């Protein structure tokens, strides 16, 4: 035994030897991956344990084989998180890209039962190996990196970036970020597997960092609280946090549905690939929108003529891409006022702000007072960002008929359209001026900013496209009977869909091609199915016409002629019930004629 000094020295050496032994034989440099399913706790809560567990199983089945195929080792799973290690950082990053792609492909499958998003984080460092597990600062750091990612994102630390920069992996520097338990901020990089705009990504990161500041130490927080003014409520705020990337949105569109009867569209058409016709009208609207000062448009059309679908289509990336000169500079906000007939102006603005937050999530952050000032601030911010904003207002007559809204409100909307790159595209059953709560409103110069566009019947070629395109794509082409379908439903988008649906269903059931039915009369069940669905609508049309117009239709059904110069006849043409193919206007559909004939 030596002196205390010798023993302490020996102890120190022994510890160093042991540490060296551990470092040499029980640690290794690894790339650590953490993943986590976004929102899974809420999913379990809402959908139940079985559905939640099923989702995790799908996730595991999808990702485990990929990790293993890239030489990764699954250390453990914690609930719906995966911890894995890779010897090679490049393979680790490549693997995460493949994992995200696999999840995207799964989510795009129409049959996907439970869609999910996963965030991923990677860090490179030395970790302590204990049997099959890994420990240490590197592990904690990797977990922290993952926790800063959002759904579909792969974040990596600077240590990973250094090791993969020459490997051609697309990586974007986002910025520095504080990490709990670390003195120095960490460099955060994003693996840009979706090929997104780098500036947009950095903008989004900055917004996120501002929104989620790291909690300061307790004493610092107390000082900050003391220093802050007592009335420091957050002021009005509008931030455009990310630009518009129409191409990316277009690429991210889910694939067009591919099975079943494609003509079952009794609700607003959701997929732009299923929207047919109106090409000239869409171009006209978009050219007004692209004008130096965007122009407002009032779309007027009968029930079931497809106004809501048209309005919805305008905001789709497909329509924007195909018809706007600068698609990335125009924001759209769709609002349906059917449900909100008794709004007060404050509620109107509040609805606009909340829907803007919802429909443009990730692009606009705003906190505005629900009044004229808030609305003006929004328009100013849009202008300052070099954007233009198109409000798509469906069933706008619900607003103009609302007695709670005073004429000044409309003057204010007009002033916005005059002062800012803002326009209104409204849809209504009749001219807005004829559907106002008071003369003071209908006399408002607000209505002068609109050019009225009628939404009427299809052009014949659009109708033929609708008959032939979707049916061909689903393997039951209707082209051989397209003339009969057009005769039945006319070139009216709704009745055409009904006729197509009946024919498609018949051919699907009897397992015959339309080609085989050439020369045969139209099957009884097709006629019955069409009549069952169309007749209540025919009845509605006829019962809601002025007597003079009803009489004209009945005359036409009885073989008589309508005088094309009469205003009532012209009105019926504009509404799509009479169609001019030759000199005389004729009824738009043979079935409508038959319905009227029987009624007569």
């Amino acid at each position, binding site marked *: 035994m030596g002196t205390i000094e010798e023993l302490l020295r020996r102890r120190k050496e022994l510890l160093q030897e042991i540490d060296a032994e551990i470092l040499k034989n029980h640690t290794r440099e690894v790339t650590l991956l953490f993943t986590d399913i976004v929102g899974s706790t*809420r*999913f379990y*809560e*809402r*959908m*139940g344990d079985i*559905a939640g567990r099923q989702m995790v199983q799908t996730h595991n089945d999808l990702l485990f084989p990929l990790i293993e195929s890239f030489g990764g080792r699954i250390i453990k799973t914690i609930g719906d998180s995966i911890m894995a290690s890779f010897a090679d950082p490049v393979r680790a990053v490549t693997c995460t890209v493949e994992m995200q792609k696999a999840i995207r492909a799964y*989510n795009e499958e*129409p*049959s*996907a*039962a*439970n*869609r999910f998003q996963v965030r991923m984080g990677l860090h490179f460092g030395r970790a302590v190996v204990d049997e099959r597990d890994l420990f240490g600062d590197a592990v904690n750091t990797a977990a922290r990196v993952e926790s800063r990612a959002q759904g579909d994102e792969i974040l990596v630390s600077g240590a990973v970036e250094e090791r993969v920069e020459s490997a051609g992996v697309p990586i974007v520097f986002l910025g520095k970020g504080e990490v709990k338990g670390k003195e120095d901020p960490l460099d955060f990089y994003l693996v840009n597997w979706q090929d997104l705009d780098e500036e947009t990504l950095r903008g989004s990161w900055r917004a996120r960092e501002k929104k989620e500041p790291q909690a300061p130490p307790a004493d610092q927080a107390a000082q900050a609280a003391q220093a802050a003014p007592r009335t420091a409520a957050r002021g009005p705020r509008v931030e455009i946090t990310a630009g518009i990337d129409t191409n990316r949105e277009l690429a991210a569109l889910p694939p067009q*549905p591919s*099975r*079943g*009867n*494609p003509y*079952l*569209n*009794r*609700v*607003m058409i*959701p*997929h732009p690939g299923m929207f047919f016709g109106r090409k000239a009208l869409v171009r006209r609207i978009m050219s007004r929108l692209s004008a130096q000062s965007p122009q407002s448009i009032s779309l007027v059309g009968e*029930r*079931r003529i497809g106004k*809501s679908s048209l309005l919805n289509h305008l905001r789709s990336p497909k329509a924007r891409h195909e018809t706007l000169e600068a698609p990335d500079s125009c924001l759209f906000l769709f609002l*349906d006022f*059917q*449900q*909100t*007939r*008794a709004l007060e102006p404050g509620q109107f603005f509040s609805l606009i702000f909340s829907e803007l937050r919802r429909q443009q999530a990730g692009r606009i952050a705003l906190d505005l007072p629900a009044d004229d000032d808030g609305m003006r601030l929004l328009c100013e911010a849009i202008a300052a960002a070099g954007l233009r904003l198109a409000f798509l207002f469906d*069933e706008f007559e619900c607003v103009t008929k609302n007695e709670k809204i005073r004429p000044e409100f409309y003057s204010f909307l007009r002033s916005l359209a005059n002062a800012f790159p803002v326009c209104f595209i409204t849809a209504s059953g009749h001219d807005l001026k004829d559907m106002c709560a008071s003369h003071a409103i209908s006399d408002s110069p607000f209505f002068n900013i609109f050019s009225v566009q009628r939404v009427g019947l299809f052009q014949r070629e659009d109708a033929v496209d609708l008959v032939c395109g979707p049916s061909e794509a689903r393997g039951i082409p209707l082209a051989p009977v397209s003339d009969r379908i057009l005769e039945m439903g006319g070139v009216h988008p709704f009745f055409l869909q009904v006729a197509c649906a009946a024919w498609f*269903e018949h051919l699907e*059931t009897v397992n015959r091609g339309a080609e085989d039915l050439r020369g045969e009369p139209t099957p009884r069940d097709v006629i019955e199915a069409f009549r*069952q*669905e169309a*007749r*209540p609508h025919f009845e*509605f049309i006829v019962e*809601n016409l002025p007597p003079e117009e009803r009489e004209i239709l009945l005359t036409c059904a009885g073989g008589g002629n309508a005088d094309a110069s009469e205003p009532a006849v012209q009105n019926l043409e504009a509404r799509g019930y009479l169609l001019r193919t030759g000199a005389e206007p004729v009824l738009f559909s043979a079935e409508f004629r038959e319905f009227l004939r*029987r*009624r*007569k």
Partner: protein
Amino acid sequence: MIDPEAPVREPSGFIGQAGLVRRVFSRIGADRPQSVAVIGGKKSGKTSLLAYISAPGVAARLLEGVERFLLVSMCADCEAAKSPESFLAGLEGLLPASAGGANHYESIRKSIEELHAAGRRLVVLLDDFHFITSNERFPLEFFSFLRSMANNYNLAYVTTSFLELQKLCVIKDVQESPFFNIFTNMHLGMLSNDEAKLLFVRATGMGDELAGRVAAWCGSSPFLLKKAGARLAREKAPDALPEANLERILFPEAAPYFEEVISLLPPEALKPLQSIARGKSPDPSEIHHLSSLVKQGFLVETEDAVSCFSPAFLLFLRKALAARMLKGKG
């Protein structure tokens, strides 16, 4: 013991309407689920049909990717029809709990939004929905909300009602609203001849031959067939009943039902019905007044003529004509 009034709750006891059932499933199973309004007269089997559609085994057989669907059933009578709040509270209770909202509308919207985001499809089966559309306590906003949910999410409604929903509206704004545009109307008609015979045999345990005779005389209404079965079960040898006796026994069973059907007709329908009772064709310009009877299957329409669906119904009309029951404004 046959109870003709009781709806069939067990899928194995439900017979017929195969074509209609297939069409309903093709609509709710479409890429974008589509709403269907099943319209059928009183005692036409609407509730039984809805129970059949919502049975897990049936949906599993007829709905592709059934695991993605959530089917919830609700009867819109009594409690639910008291007010929009009671209806929405009932609906909210059937949906997975959401993070909660300021009111029922908001909570339901959130639940539906979450289901939609999770790739699920919601089908809400609403029996006797006419109680709602004909109740003036349900404002336009209520129906607009239902439409907006169907427009924006993977959600469809399957409703039943004894008339087209629109015709039952008491509020003009509601009647003219685009809510009804989201529905495909399907009429619940009579059974096919084979289905009628099968139903009779299954319900009564009696023979095929008698089933054929009963269906041929009464007509293939499921209610009438069960009513006839219940009556014949009291006979010692129903199979041996001569035709005239069979008709004499069954007519009193069928007549009250026919009377109820006729009582719901608009006055304009009575004049063309008189023509049919007299064995004549109604004036073609009046045939459309009989459209509800045609849709329900009590009358059969050919090119320009209309006839009764069964000898029992024709006999009833003749007796009703004699008793001046068909005298109306028409």
